[in-house]
């Protein structure tokens, strides 16, 4: 069976005064139907720009998809006109963002906003759209959903707003839901509720999810497969258990050792242990990166790493990595 979403050698660039920023620099991955894929990396690694590229939301005045292919359900998206994209967004592919307040309309009630989306995409009468909005708010377990339909976003708590965003995103039964840091702005107990809700709804509706986050804990607990990005490139991809049990790329290994952990003993002989640091800084994306993007910070780097881009090598079981040294 072919993948629902196929991204191939995607290059997305922004034009700035300092030069062309290669925000996404040759990324490829597949998303199967009903799958949960995590894209993880630190600020500026290109994970959000990858998501915006899929939905063709890169503003034309600042940047563009320079090359590559994005196929959704067998259909190429990179050349589609804006009208066709509008029919796709919020219907077949929808997205939720970190801060729901920036994507909800402050002067419309939440019921109206959800109903609008349903009416536009499914062509049903307004009354049916409102009814669907009620169903969706109940589905995301907003208490007293009938009354909440007539409330404005500012009347809701942060957790409830994110529930409304999820209700709206799922209102037209999309095949793909892209969630960009959906719980980062939320408190710990609310984050747990929202993650549980997303997974439960996925089981019910069969929607595939692309979860974009910097948080390895969130990735471990919600996804089935993970893409690790660094400086605009994919450096490793693996089923979630394999990635956390045997991370291969030195960057992935470094990330896992750098995080303080709740599930292991914090002190050794009464002393707080040192976290492992990744020395140095991420490369500047306006300059061409020769060789491996991580070479300058990598403990294993050799001369070849600094001159030749490492190819993706299959380590078995769907675990692939781009590193000269670990696959030697």
């Amino acid at each position: 069976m072919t993948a629902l979403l196929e991204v191939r050698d995607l290059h997305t660039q922004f034009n700035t005064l300092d030069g062309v920023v290669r925000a996404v620099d040759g990324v490829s991955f597949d998303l199967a139907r009903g799958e949960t894929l995590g894209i993880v990396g630190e600020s500026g690694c290109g994970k959000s720009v990858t998501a915006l590229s899929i939905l063709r939301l890169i503003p034309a005045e600042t940047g563009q998809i320079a090359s590559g292919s994005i196929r959704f359900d067998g259909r190429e998206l990179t050349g589609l006109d804006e009208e066709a994209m509008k029919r796709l967004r919020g219907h077949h592919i929808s997205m939720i963002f970190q801060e729901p307040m920036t994507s909800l309309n402050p002067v419309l009630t939440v019921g109206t906003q959800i109903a609008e989306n349903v009416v536009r995409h499914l062509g049903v009468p307004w009354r049916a759209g409102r009814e669907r909005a009620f169903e969706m708010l109940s589905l995301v377990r907003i208490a007293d959903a009938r009354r909440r339909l007539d409330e404005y976003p500012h009347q809701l708590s942060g957790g409830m707003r994110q529930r409304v965003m999820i209700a709206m995103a799922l209102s037209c039964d999309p095949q793909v839901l892209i969630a960009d840091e959906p719980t980062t702005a939320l408190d710990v107990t609310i984050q747990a509720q929202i993650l549980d809700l997303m997974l439960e709804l996925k089981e019910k509706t069969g929607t595939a999810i692309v979860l974009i986050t910097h948080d390895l804990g969130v990735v471990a607990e919600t996804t089935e497969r993970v893409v690790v990005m660094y400086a605009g490139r994919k450096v490793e991809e693996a089923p979630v258990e394999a990635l956390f049990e045997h991370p291969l790329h030195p960057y992935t290994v470094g990330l896992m050792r750098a995080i303080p952990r709740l599930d292991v003993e914090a002190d050794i002989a009464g002393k707080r242990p040192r976290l492992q640091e990744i020395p140095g800084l991420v490369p500047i994306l306006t300059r061409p990166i020769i060789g491996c993007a991580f070479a300058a910070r990598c403990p294993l780097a050799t001369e070849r790493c600094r001159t030749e881009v490492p190819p993706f090598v299959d380590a078995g079981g769907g675990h692939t990595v781009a590193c000269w040294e670990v696959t030697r």
Partner: protein
Amino acid sequence: MSDAALLEVRDLVKHFPILGGLLQRQVGQVKAVDGVSFAIRRGETLGLVGESGCGKSTIGKTVLKLIEPTAGRILLGGEDVTELPPGAMWAHRRRIQTIFQDPYSSMNPRLSAGTIVGEPLENFGLTRGRETDDRVASLFTRVGLRPDSMRKFAHEFSGGQRQRLGIAKALSVNPDLIVADEPVSALDVSVQAQVLNLLIDLQEEYGLAYLFISHDLAVMRHISHRIAVMYLGRIVELAAKRTLFETPKHPYTEALLSAATAPDPKRRRQRKRIVQGDVPSPAKPPPGCHFHTRCPYAVAECKVTAPPLREVAPGHHVACLLR
């Protein structure tokens, strides 16, 4: 509380008025901090953990005397600083410094990094001219910045480097206590590790005490010696780090721990989340125990009686009627 306490906070209360109506009269109040007591020893890190609106940052600001408490006492080295006149407070200011979540917003964009770090030294009259430059250069080196970057401006530094600048500035006047409010929350994982390591090194080197405020339990567990868990303006549990994580007593602490994610895919289906629902508004906290509306164990008594913080085992304090 023993005499050895560097900072002692007793029954601290901070209410903020809610203004409303045409005449902006006071129509209510937010009890941001509602009777909080704790102490910090020299060289110790006390972590304050809780969700948004629990009052943890308000406590930090009150300890720094950036805002005045509504009631309660703050003792620094045994001396009450709550009602000191501004002149007398001056000498104490040097002893308590702060590091913010976003150091950039606290730095003058027109001043060089060296001037920013050296400013407190000159303000307190500790050094002058060349002496200041030398001291700043050594501070830069100590926090892992190149001394030749003293002439750069704040915007020329990365996020992690700016946090190092903030630390250098706080450190410049040899404080006893640093209030660190979410100092690593805005940083990427790899940089966060660098800053946490630096904070621990500096503590051991200079015998600094930290009041470390964060919502991140894993960071807390790494850096703290003791931890106070807050919920809607009150401390619900206070214990040594290990005790708190291994034998939490308060249902809210249990809930927080159960809700935190761990970087281990095998754990994902084993856990059950304990709490549902949102944190109530701090302007209208529930009566009795603030947590009773979300607590799975709550009984009728919890709705009327606010439980006091009791010592249930040496050094382990819990505010719960049932534990």
